[in-house]
């Protein structure tokens, strides 16, 4: 067959969002790719210049619908660096619980979306079933199902609800049992291994140079995690270890990227359980809104010449906010708010990874990098 360009997207089952991947194929073999982004660019960075620091949290939630909490927390940490705020330790623990539950939910969403990519619908529904449990927990914390607006500058919106710890432990333990079902479904299925092993090799050094971060780079055997490399919360006090894969010398393939996320879910579950045990003041006490144990006083304005930035371990990699103070209304608004999206940098690299594989591998490879277009286009 002659060479031809195929335009996959913006509406295509492979894309997991609204973007276009233009693929040049020679028969069934991919010989060139070209990603095209920007379909849902919402000018969030421009909008940020007209919102004060608390109002912008909701926009951060909406950067990524699958992982809202991690994004608003990344933003809040950057604002706290800008405004020089110390957060109470209990609030840090509650944030950790919220973020790690969100990470589990996000990885479940990824796993659920990945299985149809390689042709199985069953695990998709199983994952969404468990994700619903996680969303229930987050709903108890933040009050809504997807966009929580949970963190505040200097703490969190509200304390753990009464009985939350008990329910959370039950659900996390149930979830840890259910992971075995996925492993029986996927790791022990030759067809799944045939589809994911040896496909989409990504070299570790190359990934770092290309700016790929997070689970994708840990799948390449590199133990790099913002949570210990640039420590920010109470991750040094709870029980966890970074999940790192053991790839082949050709690099990390789709199977490694699948394993690293499954293990990361287990680590997150471990972290949540441990954080509930170690919560200062006990996980069963409940403070009122705005109590100083969960919310510190924070200034409203950032003077001119200040800036704050924060690297954050998002579910998909290293997210980052860089905020320059001193905007309109005597510093009530930021002068510039810049967002680093991990997937914006990863998608071009993932597209390069496909060259040389078959058309059927395109969704298998692209899906394994966990694209989320909401954060990519901002």
């Amino acid at each position: 067959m002659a060479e031809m360009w195929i335009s996959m997207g913006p509406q295509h089952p492979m894309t997991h969002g609204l973007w276009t991947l233009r693929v040049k194929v020679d028969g069934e073999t991919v010989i060139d790719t070209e990603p095209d982004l920007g379909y849902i660019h919402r000018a969030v960075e421009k909008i940020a210049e007209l919102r004060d620091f608390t109002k912008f949290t909701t926009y951060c939630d909406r950067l990524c619908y699958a992982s809202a909490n991690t994004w608003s927390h990344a933003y809040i940490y950057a604002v706290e660096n800008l405004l020089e705020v110390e957060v109470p330790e209990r609030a840090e623990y509650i944030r950790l619980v919220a973020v790690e539950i969100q990470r589990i939910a996000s990885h479940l969403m990824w796993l659920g979306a990945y299985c149809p990519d390689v042709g199985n619908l069953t695990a998709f529904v199983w994952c969404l079933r468990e994700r619903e449990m996680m969303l229930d927990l987050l709903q108890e914390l933040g009050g809504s199902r997807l966009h929580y607006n949970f963190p505040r500058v200097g703490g969190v919106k509200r304390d753990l609800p009464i009985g939350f710890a008990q329910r959370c432990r039950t659900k996390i333990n149930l979830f840890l049992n259910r992971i075995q079902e996925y492993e029986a479904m996927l790791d022990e299925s030759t067809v799944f291994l045939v589809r994911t092993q040896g496909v989409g090799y990504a070299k570790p050094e190359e990934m770092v140079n290309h700016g790929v971060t997070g689970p994708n780079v840990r799948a390449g055997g590199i133990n790099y995690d913002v949570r210990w490399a640039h420590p920010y919360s109470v991750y040094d006090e709870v029980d966890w270890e970074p999940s790192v894969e053991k790839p082949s010398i050709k690099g990390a393939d789709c199977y490694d990227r699948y394993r690293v996320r499954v293990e990361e879910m287990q680590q997150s579950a471990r972290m949540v359980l441990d954080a509930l045990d170690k919560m200062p003041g006990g996980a069963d006490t409940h403070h009122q809104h705005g109590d100083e144990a969960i919310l510190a006083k924070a200034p409203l304005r950032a003077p001119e010449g200040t800036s704050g930035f924060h690297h954050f371990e998002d579910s998909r990699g290293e997210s980052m906010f860089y905020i320059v103070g001193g905007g309109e209304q005597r510093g009530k608004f930021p002068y510039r708010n810049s967002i680093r999206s991990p997937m914006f940098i990863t998608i071009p690299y993932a597209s390069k990874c496909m060259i040389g594989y078959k058309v059927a591998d395109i969704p298998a490879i692209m899906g394994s990098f966990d694209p989320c277009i909401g954060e990519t286009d901002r």
Partner: protein
Amino acid sequence: MGMKIDMEAAEVAANLVVAQGRSRWGGTGLTMEVQHHAGGRFKRPYIRIDCPPQHWLAVAKWLRFDAGVDHCSMITGIHWPEGSDERRWEVVIHLMRMNVIDPPERGNWVEQVVRDASILQEEDVPLEFEVSICLPDTRTPSVPSVQQVWVGADWNEKETWDLGGIDFDGHVGMRRVLLPHDSPVGYHPLQKQHKLRYHDFEEMYDDAQGFQRKPVDAGKIK
């Protein structure tokens, strides 16, 4: 038990890099100093570099190959229409020393590199860098591209030009990435002359659909 790097080791490592940098780049107008994050539990050190635009490519190569900075996080373009004379445009580049060592190979497999973070010393400590490049008032702001040094800077630079209008010399394949491909030449919405809010009128809320917007040739054509 969780792990984290030792804060004192990070402090030492940051000072070491700054000392090396000062001896290498002394007298070129480049300043380098250790600063600290102001919030959070750990006042983590990071290295702030103010770099003249003409030296940026050389500094980048020094950072990449001598200081071991292997990861380009983000590039931000800022427009300061009312800034000082030497700072009308600014490019802020956030880099990280992830300190990745190539994982050792054994047979067909790569060994995992799992290290105890708390014993990392000097060159091994992950560090954050903030590089600021200021440009004077010009209609065509431009800084050297570091696309060849860190491939990760590629799309960051594209985005900075697309939204902020700061061009990168030597960047191969510059194009619109987030805005439509047929956006007008010279239209870069994060420049400060584009405002969302006018006197008594907020475009986002008062005319979200754009019905009241008039075409540019309104009144000229009957």
